[in-house]
């Protein structure tokens, strides 16, 4: 009987939300950059969310990246107020 001592690594899952689905090319590009930012391999799931108006958001546990049109609109609103 042999014992397989290879390490089992549990990957973290990030959720990407967008108004329209990302193309495969877009998904690949985004995942490469997310890996660089986070510094480790992650699993990414994609969801549709019309509330963000455009662009996308990424949530990984407590970390959150907002690249949405809703945020751009909010910034414009704060400048005008």
């Amino acid at each position, binding site marked *: 009987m042999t014992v397989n001592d290879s390490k089992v690594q549990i990957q973290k899952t990030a959720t990407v939300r*967008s108004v329209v689905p990302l193309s495969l090319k*877009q998904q690949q590009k985004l995942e490469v950059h997310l890996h660089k930012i986070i510094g480790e391999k992650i699993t990414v799931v994609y969801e549709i969310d019309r509330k963000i108006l455009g*662009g996308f958001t990424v949530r990984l546990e407590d970390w959150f990246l907002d690249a949405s*049109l809703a945020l751009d609109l909010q910034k414009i609103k704060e400048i*005008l107020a």
Partner: protein
Amino acid sequence: MEKLGIQPIPLLLQGINFLILLLILKKYLYKPILTALAERKKKIEEGLEYSQKTKAEFEKSEKKGEEILSRARSEGQKIIEEAKRVSKKKEAELIEKAEKQAQEIVAKARQENEVLKEELEKDLKREAIEMAERIVERVIKESLTESAHKALIDRKIKEVARESIK
């Protein structure tokens, strides 16, 4: 004398009678009359003296009364002048106070108006921004095509890439 019809003896007797009558009259009639006249004269003199004394006292009292009246008039005039002076001073004070209060009210009203104006402007601005936000959201939802969304996602990925390099 007899040729003239004058008889000496009866004439002498008449003279004696006259003297006797004169003495009687002097003793019993003239003396009381003179005494009564003297008393009457004395009373009249006393009356005159009293009258003059009374007149002098009356004049004195009248003079004194005029002095009192004059003094009273003078005092009254002084009181009136003082009252007028106090009244004018009070009036000036009241006017000054009223003007000050009016100025304060106007200043307060201006300040309140300014605050109200600012609040109104803020409300209007906020409402305009919210309205613009709703319009923009609707335009984005209704007008952006899938290809436009994808182009936007591309641009956002590039921004994320720039952030990852930093």
